[in-house]
């Protein structure tokens, strides 16, 4: 199977418009004849469900949580980018496109990223019309702030709860369509398999989390909006239920997985503080607008921060990157924090933290202003750590936050399985090797509101398939396979819980496939994962039965998939013998310890095809062609 990206011809700025015209339309009266399944109700899923239902399609929408309002998009704090140029500081669609391509270290498609920048403005208009209470200035117009990797203020925000407000906006549109009968909502359902009939995605198998029933649903197309796989590291800023299962099962049914090794380590998280810890908490990157990052000049300096005079402090980001300072992109900020800690300059009890200091900002702008901007973040920090960031600098350390890799999709957001579309973080398409701050919300909503409602029509008009129901033998077979996998998990009856295995996997991934990687470590990790996986199937303990509410069983299934998926990440990381963005192989760095790309050999998307249980996946290459930007070493100095 080849990789056809289906990027339209023509000049960059005209591609999307031309494509919209060329896409076949579904007659309004015929839309009601099509059923579409959407899995996931984050920004990408809720927006897609609502918009497609508004057009007239029959949508069935599934989520793991008890309500579609809770998907993890809700936790995004800082904001959403758009090229409005409301700040009059020289922003444009072209600049947003350029910043995103550059920020992604030239490993994303030009055409996709340009389209993202184009529709960014529509998103803000739509969300305001929905009643999203964005921050405003005294004149009543929308307020903007700046974010890492950009020198313009293009980020729209709703206090430190932008993701929540955007998600509740999408959820309100979804609720309206549910009331209208165009969306049927299925909450507390866990997608465990994809059903493919005659080569086309035609439905899903889910477990009803309340009573344990295995249910099947059929449709004319399936949209996965199931988020990222950051929880493969066990500790991440992802919600507890975030998992790779839906995407991984689709991969096993023939969808290629692209760039799985591209993971983002976010620089400003609350440091790890104990073995029992279940997750890490992000402190929005917007804090770097006013907070100054520093460590003591002298390794091992254990004085309290207030005792260390200016001369004894190293503001390492400001010193090393004078033009971007504390606002360098996330991958750069994270690696530099690690580097300082590796040199013994880390602070706090574990030595794995750097300071983020607001003293200057408070002195300059006053406590009131800082509190208005970041009040809820400061409170959250105080709740978790018991320390007051108004009085003493925050301590932060990088943590796994976002995954740029995902299922491979073409320009229409369709995977290598016809009829299977993938939106939001679950696909690989727009962020290359590193995502810029405030771009995830933008991408999720762009995919959901303004891209898939059109492109899915182009697929559905293509026809070439007949109506089927869940009585089809493929549905029976898939449901049977899911049931036997669940029985297998319950039957091990060993001595270690799924959480325990997950923790072990996370340690391997963080140690060898985290902020810095090397070939020996990756090879070592591959063996360790294989050993852990084999122990998992010999020694897993899942209490109770499958025919009821059983959170341990849910968890076990997810960990089983992570144990296979982790190996795929390692394989991808080993195949990419360069450093770029979030993928930093120690053998490939500049003299100043920046990522050194190998454009000659690696300007491509690595897409992996499942080749059968126990077989090495098959590598496919989608070359990336840059016609509009010149590839250069990223410099934020």
């Amino acid at each position, binding site marked *: 199977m080849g990789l056809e990206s289906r990027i339209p011809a023509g000049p960059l700025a005209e591609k999307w418009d031309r494509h919209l015209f060329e896409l076949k339309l579904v007659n309004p009266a015929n839309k009601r004849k099509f059923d579409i399944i959407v899995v996931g109700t984050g920004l990408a899923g809720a927006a897609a469900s609502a918009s497609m239902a508004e057009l007239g399609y029959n949508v069935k929408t599934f989520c793991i949580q008890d309500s579609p309002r809770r998907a993890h998009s809700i936790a995004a704090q800082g904001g959403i980018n758009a090229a409005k140029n409301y700040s009059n500081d020289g922003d444009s669609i072209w600049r947003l496109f350029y910043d995103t391509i550059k920020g992604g270290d030239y490993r994303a498609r030009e055409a996709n990223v340009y389209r993202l920048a184009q529709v960014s403005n529509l998103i803000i208009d739509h969300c305001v019309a929905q009643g999203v209470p964005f921050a405003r200035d005294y004149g009543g117009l929308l307020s903007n702030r700046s974010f890492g990797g950009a020198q313009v203020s293009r980020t729209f925000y709703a206090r430190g709860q932008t993701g929540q407000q955007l998600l509740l906006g999408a959820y309100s549109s979804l609720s309206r369509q549910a009331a209208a009968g165009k969306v049927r909502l299925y909450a507390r359902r866990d997608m465990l398999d994809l059903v493919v009939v005659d080569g086309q995605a035609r439905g899903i198998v889910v477990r009803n989390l309340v009573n344990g029933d295995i249910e099947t649903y059929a449709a004319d197309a399936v949209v996965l909006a199931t988020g990222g796989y950051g929880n493969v590291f066990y500790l991440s800023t992802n919600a507890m239920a975030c998992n790779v299962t839906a995407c991984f099962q689709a991969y096993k049914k023939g969808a290629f997985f692209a760039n799985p090794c591209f993971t983002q380590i976010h620089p400003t998280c609350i440091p790890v*503080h104990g073995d029992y810890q279940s997750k890490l908490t992000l402190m929005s990157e917007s804090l770097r607008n006013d907070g100054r990052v520093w460590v003591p000049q002298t390794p091992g300096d254990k004085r309290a921060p207030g005792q260390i005079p200016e001369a004894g402090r190293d503001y390492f980001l400001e010193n090393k990157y004078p033009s971007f300072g504390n606002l360098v992109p996330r991958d750069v900020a994270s690696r530099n924090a690690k580097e300082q800690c590796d040199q013994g300059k880390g602070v706090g009890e574990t030595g794995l933290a750097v300071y983020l200091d607001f003293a200057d900002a408070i002195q300059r702008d006053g406590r009131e202003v800082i509190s208005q901007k970041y009040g809820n973040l400061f409170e959250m920090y105080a709740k978790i750590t018991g320390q007051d960031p108004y009085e003493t600098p925050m301590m932060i350390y990088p943590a796994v936050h976002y995954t740029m890799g995902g299922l491979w999709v073409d320009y229409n957001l369709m995977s290598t399985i016809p009829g299977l579309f993938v939106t939001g973080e679950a696909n690989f398409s727009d962020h290359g090797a590193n995502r810029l701050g405030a771009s995830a919300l933008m991408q999720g909503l762009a995919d959901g509101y303004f891209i898939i409602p059109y492109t899915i029509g182009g697929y559905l008009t293509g026809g070439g398939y007949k109506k089927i129901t869940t009585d089809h033998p493929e549905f029976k077979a898939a449901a049977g396979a899911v049931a036997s996998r669940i029985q297998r998990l319950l039957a091990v009856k060993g001595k270690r819980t799924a959480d325990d295995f997950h923790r072990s996997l996370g340690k391997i991934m963080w140690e060898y496939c985290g902020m810095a990687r090397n070939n020996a470590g990756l090879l070592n990790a591959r063996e360790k994962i294989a050993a852990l996986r084999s122990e998992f199937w010999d020694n897993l303990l899942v209490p*109770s039965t499958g025919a009821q509410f059983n959170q341990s069983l849910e968890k076990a299934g997810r960990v089983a998939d992570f144990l296979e998926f982790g190996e795929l990440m390692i394989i991808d990381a080993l195949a990419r013998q360069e450093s770029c963005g979030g993928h930093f192989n120690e053998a490939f760095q500049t003299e100043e310890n920046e990522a050194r790309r190998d454009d000659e050999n690696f300007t491509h998307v690595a897409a992996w095809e499942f080749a059968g249980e126990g077989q090495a996946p098959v590598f496919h290459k989608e070359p990336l062609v840059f016609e509009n930007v010149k590839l250069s070493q990223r410099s934020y100095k």
Partner: protein
Amino acid sequence: MTTAKTIHLTLKVVRQTGPDQKSNLETYAARNVSTDMSFLEMLDVVNEDLTLAGQDPIAFDHDCREGICGMCGAVVNGRPHGPQEGTTLCQLHMRHFEDGDEVVIEPWRSRAFKVIKDLVVDRGAFDQIIQAGGYISINTGGAPDANSLPVPKEMADQAMDAAACIGCGACVAACPNASAMLFTGAKISQLALLPQGRPEAKRRAAAMVAAMDKLGFGNCTNERECEAVCPKNISIVHIARMNREFLKAGFF
């Protein structure tokens, strides 16, 4: 971090195997609890021990564990989300407990929230209230430029105060009448404050209040328990605004 201590607690947890089953109060020892742990991390550790001992772990809802998704919640020593003001259960840390404390943990209780298992309840009724009118009826596409409609900052800020609701249900659990007025009022208020929401304000208020009544939630008798336990400090001002919007819908 502050320096962590280790404490020992006795948990009394309401266990219930299914919606139509009887509940029991079970006692568990939570030993060697670090005061840096969150309340849910403490329950994780207890559950790990229960599982290894061949018992069924305590079922509880949770997801983001940073106080924003609204999935978690239980009544701790009689108070929804536990003793700390303005805090969800996942953000409650064990440094607020003393060595030797007895901690009673119960699910939300309300006619409209059926228990699914142990501390897990069905809050689908909240979705139904929103579906009755908690939205602005616009379709994707065709919205005017975002800055074409100025909104006074003060209004936008007040709308944001209301919009901060996470839909956790603590307000219902705390109310002696199991009223959902804080939840419903917050959404009606957010959309009534914004000019975008005015065209449908009447219909929205009438429909959402009717849905709330139909789903079995009680009425407000100004106990203010909801406001006291709300993890997002949503004010009952929004209930007052809902009442005004509701009256306007009926009479004007």
